[in-house]
């Protein structure tokens, strides 16, 4: 207790510490309104966070490896909250197009616990393993899953694509 400089520094540090702890403890009461956005980086993005390293590939082998599926939006891009169509390509693992696949579509937003807002359907076979899927709509930004169940030649397999709507 001899050196007044040490005393001053220690008391300053302790005061700052106490104030900080008080602020943190009061946080649930005062809410975020007095905080600068940079100090609460997660607040704004909570609902939109998707898991790190999400596989958003548009071509994938099916879960059991029976087929390879790929999708592309008919118009080239996936519009937000508009009904649109995809072209889904189904080939065998060796690259042969699958001509007679029966495809069912479902999906949803895993983080929000809801499914697709529409019931998309395959409406046309375009040839060369390509199928037109109509009636897709993604009504909000964030992580969506679209699952295709494919049945061909008594084999059923499925594949789940991830996409992130901006």
């Amino acid at each position, binding site marked *: 207790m001899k050196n*007044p*400089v040490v005393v*001053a*520094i220690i008391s*300053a540090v302790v005061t*700052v510490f106490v104030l900080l702890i008080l602020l943190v403890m009061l946080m*649930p*009461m*005062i*809410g*975020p*309104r007095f905080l*600068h*956005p*940079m*100090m609460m*980086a*997660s*607040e*704004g*993005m*909570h*609902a*939109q966070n998707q898991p790190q390293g999400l596989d958003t590939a548009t071509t994938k082998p099916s879960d059991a490896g029976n087929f390879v599926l790929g999708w592309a939006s008919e118009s080239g891009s996936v519009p*937000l*909250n508009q*009904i649109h169509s995809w072209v889904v390509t189904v080939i065998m693992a060796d690259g042969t197009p699958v001509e007679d696949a029966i495809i069912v579509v479902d999906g949803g937003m895993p983080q*929000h*616990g*809801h*499914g*697709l*807002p*529409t*019931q*998309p*359907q395959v409406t046309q076979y375009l040839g060369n393993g390509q199928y037109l899927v*109509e*009636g897709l*709509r993604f*009504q*909000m*930004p964030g992580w969506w899953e679209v699952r295709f169940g494919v049945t061909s030649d008594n084999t059923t397999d499925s594949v789940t694509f991830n996409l992130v709507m*901006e």
Partner: protein
Amino acid sequence: MKRIVLIVGLLLVMVTVGVAGWFATFPRWTEEELAILRGLSIDALPALPKDPSNRYGDDLAAARFGQALFFDTRLSSNGEVSCASCHQPDRSFTDGLALGEGVGTAGRKTMNIIGTAYSPWQFWDGRKDSQWAQALGPLESAVEHGGDRTFYARIIAQEYADQYQSIFGSLPDLSDQDRFPLNAGPVDDPLVNAAWEAMTQEDRDIVTQIFVNMGKAIAAYERRLLPGTTRFDLYVRAAIANDRTEMDRQMNEQEVAGLRLFIGRANCTQCHNGPLFTNNDFHNTGVPAVIGKAPDRGRADGVTQLLSDEFNCLGRWSDAGAEDCDELKFAIVEGEQLVGAFKPSSLRNITLTAPYMHAGQFASLDEVLMHYNHAPMAAVGHSELVPLHINRFEREDIIAFLATLEGGTSAGPEWLAAP
């Protein structure tokens, strides 16, 4: 000793001020947040898409005619109820009541009309897929307008013949009361219904055509009721330009805090997204049943009615080709997720439309937020809610933010009263 304390103290103050000043130079919103805000602002609202099911949708004369019908109390069994009786322009086209009051009491709350031209579904349960088909529902409801098709067709022939014919062409002669009874239509009243059944198919079609055209005219009017620019929209424009003075002028700290919660922890944008603050889908949020009534099954029943509705997009009275009816063709028609699910209301002008929910179960926005906070079990089906853990102050912030979404309609005053 004293001097040293003073110096250290001064240093501390300077560092604090410096750090605070440094923080203040940071942008208030991250790029990701700005993108979300832009998506909610009215500038993100696309040009009004055509309604292919209504070829008169963008016809000005039809809109004027529809406006006259909208405010005409003769279109009711007791001569006292018009569309505007419940859809009052100064309350964002609602009535301040829990349940609509026409010639009787409706089963659900009166809905806002502003911006519904953008929605693929009308009514809380989406049992109609166009504004014109929607407009015809209350006219035939025993508790709303209480009339029937021949009754309305006669009013058109007597009161609006010239206006009608200038838009839709010749008006058939309805004077033969044997062919066209005074009261006939597919309504609940068994006598009126029997009179309708007794008419020939051809005569019924003649009457239905007039009735459908009434709906299309009303829809042409309602299409023009689009949301006005709000303080929130001006704030977003300023935020994108990083104009802090203008940002501070449009929204105060509490409103901004509410906005931050709205797009963040309060999860509001899960359903209330896009420039109209609704995804126009159907969600079960566990809203309690009305006391003394069976729980409302919402979309689960609505979609059944939609599919069998003669006025739907694929029906013969629609002007749309099958290729224009994707929403109907690819609608989800069954599943647990439809049970007890309702369309989220647009939050634009929400402060004008209390009470809230499909039967006005909640008197205030605070009650609504408390419900979302607690996330109780649903009376029917499964609620999608999870408890939010937001406190009283945060609820106040969100409500303050919602008030910045008040902007009425961009339609001029000439559209907000009888022509």
